[in-house]
């Protein structure tokens, strides 16, 4: 049902967009949605061109996608839309080092009959390095605006999948009809992660490491063979077509880097160990536990993007007569929390240049987490660098983006105050010279603590009620109802099933800033299988991903809230 709605929605969108194309076909734009001009001037603003390079009372002119002028006294073109930038702060658009933004989630592959688990088909095992994320972009994806509105103009997007999902692309987070219009650069990386095949080889880290080595070595030999054959085929057996090996050719020649989602320190070390053995260019795309790794990172020449995901701050218990043991354990736990939040400044001080990755973060957590990181030692300039100039360097696009300079692409953030101030908000985000405007919320109503499951916005975004969901697995579609109630400060919920199987309790329900997460357990033959659901609520729609943690498999889950009965 939801797919149909989606297609209809898309159709509706296309019609007015055709307005632009329709101009060439003699049509005008009846929706009035097209912009009047593609020239903008923001005047009298504090322009942070780069970390530490600030221009007071400056003006910036963006025309046809580029920054054409920037300075204190620049002439403003007559056709420009002028925005008064007084009291505003401008920054270069942020660059996301690795994320799934705009990537379409592929449908889970049906398990083949008579699956031979030791040697499954490559696509079932998740070994598809030849796929390009550029071919999997969904221009409707919520994440595009989700990331853009918190300041990201460019995302290095990688595909969803298992061990080798495919190559990444650099995308401008634009609002367009055609995916191609978003692409800044395609096929820029080979993405890989420690995610095994479902119930088949390679199943876990052991098999994944060995499989990676085997694929790499075979690619080296295969390339030699292919090169030799291309030069002079006489007397040499014909190379067999092997898309997986071919995808590795630019990697074995160090022309294309490997982006590893290896977040724990053990995983990161495993990635570096493969790099040492095989010799490819390695980028740790989502490092979460980097505090011990500075020396190894520097020695190996590995590039790093640090995760913007932080653990929740542990709260000490408020008991009066806390035992000494309890106090000590809480202290140790806090010590480790501190390691997570202070590692950014420590790595910077150790000489590691890094960018940020949002692959494990939601857009609405980015600012809060950045503030926490800054509270724990990273300077604002270094934070800004990690959002702009560092990723531009690491991704090789610093000539085009990363700073606000004449001639660079018009990726500009306009903030109501200094970005690193808690209450400042982004009013405009320019991506590729197109303006996106955002509503400024009245801060007086904002409550301080949003830790517990309180509904922060009443009325329209309340999740209480009955939803009808559908959950797609290889066995087909499962449907039923999701009934959510509020009990004091906490949510409770039940999942029912249309096919009559027993209800499941929804536990650990968290709803913060449009993000609805919960868990439930399925009892299968005496064994409890845990499923974690993470998703976003938009109006009455819930788009989520249900992950079976034990098997590391995910399925899409969509739900629609039913209108309350009168």
């Amino acid at each position, binding site marked *: 049902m939801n797919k149909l709605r989606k297609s209809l929605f898309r159709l509706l969108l296309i019609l007015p967009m055709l307005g632009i194309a329709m101009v060439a076909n003699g049509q005008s734009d009846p929706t009035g949605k097209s912009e009047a001009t593609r020239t903008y001037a923001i005047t009298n603003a504090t322009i942070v061109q780069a970390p530490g390079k600030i221009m007071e009372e400056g003006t910036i002119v963006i025309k046809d996608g580029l920054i054409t002028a920037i300075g204190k006294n620049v002439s403003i073109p007559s056709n420009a839309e002028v925005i008064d930038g007084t009291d505003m702060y401008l920054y270069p658009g942020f660059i996301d080092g690795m994320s799934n933004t705009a990537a379409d989630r592929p449908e889970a592959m049906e398990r083949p009959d008579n699956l031979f688990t030791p040697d499954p088909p490559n696509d079932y095992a998740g070994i598809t390095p030849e796929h390009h994320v550029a071919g999997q972009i969904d221009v409707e994806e919520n994440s595009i605006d989700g990331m853009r509105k918190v300041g990201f103009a460019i995302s290095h997007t990688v595909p969803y999948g298992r061990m080798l999902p495919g190559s990444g692309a650099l995308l401008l987070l634009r609002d367009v009809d055609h995916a191609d219009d978003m692409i800044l650069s395609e096929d820029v990386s080979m993405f890989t992660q420690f995610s095994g095949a479902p119930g088949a*080889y390679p199943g876990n880290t052991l098999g994944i490491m*060995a*499989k990676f080595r*085997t694929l790499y070595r075979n690619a080296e030999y295969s390339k030699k063979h292919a090169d030799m054959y291309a030069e002079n085929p006489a007397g040499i057996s014909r190379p067999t077509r092997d898309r997986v090996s071919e995808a590795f050719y630019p990697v074995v020649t160090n022309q294309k880097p490997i982006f590893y989602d290896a977040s724990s320190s053990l995983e990161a070390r495993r990635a570096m160990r493969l790099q040492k053995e095989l010799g490819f260019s390695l980028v740790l795309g989502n490092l979460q536990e980097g505090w011990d790794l500075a020396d190894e990172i520097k020695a190996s020449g590995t590039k790093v993007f640090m995760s913007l995901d932080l653990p*929740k701050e542990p709260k000490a218990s408020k008991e009066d007569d806390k035992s000494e043991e309890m106090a000590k*354990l809480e202290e*140790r736990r806090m010590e480790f929390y501190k390691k997570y939040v202070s590692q950014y400044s420590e790595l910077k001080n150790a000489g590691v240049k890094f960018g940020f990755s949002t692959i494990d973060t939601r857009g609405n957590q980015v600012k809060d987490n950045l503030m926490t990181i800054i509270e724990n030692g990273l300077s604002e300039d270094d934070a800004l660098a990690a959002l702009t100039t560092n990723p531009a360097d690491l991704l090789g696009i610093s000539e085009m983006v990363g700073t606000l300079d004449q001639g660079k692409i018009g990726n500009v953030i306009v903030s109501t105050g200094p970005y690193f101030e808690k209450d400042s908000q982004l009013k405009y985000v320019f991506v590729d010279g197109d303006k996106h405007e955002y509503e400024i919320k009245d801060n007086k109503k904002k409550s301080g603590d949003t830790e517990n499951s309180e509904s922060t916005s009443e009325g329209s975004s309340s999740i209480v009620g009955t939803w009808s969901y559908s959950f797609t*697995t290889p066995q087909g579609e499962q449907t039923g109802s999701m009934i959510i109630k509020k009990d004091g400060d906490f949510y409770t919920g039940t999942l029912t099933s249309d096919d009559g199987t027993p209800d499941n309790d929804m536990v650990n329900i968290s709803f913060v800033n449009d993000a609805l997460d919960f868990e439930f357990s399925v009892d299968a033959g005496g064994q409890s299988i845990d499923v974690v659901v993470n998703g976003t609520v938009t109006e009455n729609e819930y788009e989520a991903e249900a992950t079976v943690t034990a098997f590391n498999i995910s399925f899409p889950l969509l739900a629609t809230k039913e209108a309350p009965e009168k």
Partner: protein
Amino acid sequence: MKNSITTNIFALLMLVLCTTIVQGQAKKGSVLIKNGTVLTITDGTLENTDVLVKDGKIDRIGKNLKAPRGAEEVDATGLFVMPGIIDAHSHIAGSSINEGTSQVTAEVSMEDVVDPLDVSIYRALAGGVTSIHLMHGSANVIGGQNETLKLRWGSTNPNDLRFEGAPRTIKFALGENPTRGGRSRGIQPQSRMGVEAMLRNTFNDAIKYRDAWNEYRANKNSRKVAPEYSLRMETMVDILEGEVLVHCHSYRADEIYMLMKVFADFGIEKLTFQHANEAYKVAPELAEFGASASVFADWWAYKLEVYYSTAYNAAILTKNGVTTSINSDSGELIRHLFHEAAKTQKYGDLSDNEALALITLNPAKQLGINDRVGSLEKGKDADIAIFDKHPLSIYAVPQMTFVDGVKYFDINNDAADQRIYIDPESTIQDVQIFYAEDQHRCMEGADVINFYDLLNKQ
């Protein structure tokens, strides 16, 4: 021309040397352990004797030795000093245990999944253990390569636990575990017959692979195409060449016998049977082949293939000339291997030295590290455990444990919370109740629940 080649080779050698030196960064210590009862294993029991350790090696064993400047002195008067205990079958310190999706996974290696953050490592040190053989699980006929580790607790870098220079070893498995895997996935093997067939098939494939690659390498023509590269077959060839020691999980006498015949056919000489509950039934054959056994002290009856076991297994094997060790295969049992070894005095009257050898020199031999550890001799690594009573006494309490001369456990300096990694989102009162069966990790990850069928039921 000649000069530049020499310089090149020299430079290459220097590079190799430098990298190895950089890698061998394990902490090494110096210490003088004074006036203890020294259980050397290879040279009898020496009363009131000192052990001098310099830079991680045993420098001298004798009386009235002097400590080098700066070295710690330990007064071992009234205490017992023995070689650090070696556990030849362990699954602690590993992030994953079993790549159970295929019946042949020789290409995978436990060295890729070493987990130095496992607090079981410290608890093993507190039981006098200094080295472990981190093994792959037993769901596959030919499993993954194992990794020999030293318990250098406190580092977050897996490389710091490597037992540098230890020979490569690999896990095989016979009997109910691999056949259960085959049955649950609808593939071979599903019987002991199939297990043998799979072994022979794989070795034969390896011979073909070796021949193809030898031919390729011998081919002088520069325009030659390489055969397909298989890390799995590379490892199998290494086994055939005797470069990888095979440790085979097995129980029944007939399958133990079968494997020796297969190995004889393929010219593989070094073999250690793990668990081998029925090895006692073919002790003469094991001695004849030269195979070793690494067994439990008294686990039995938990599966059909161990229903006909005897706790006298280790004693029978020892008395029939088979090099035998006692292992734990458990994060619980590893902490009192000295007590497990002592059981052989009850079940079979082994002498003190014979019993202690089961957890020191013999496992060292089986892992190919007996030139480095397993006894207290000059020149060996200073992996040492100190007890307040004879280690075979039930009343003995481990006091200190040294690895490479560095003290990693001291009962007088033992904080309760030894974790070196704490999840900030964990609860404080994280209580876990374990039952005996939860500790046996050999089949972890290999129990293939057909998830898709489960979802269907749901």
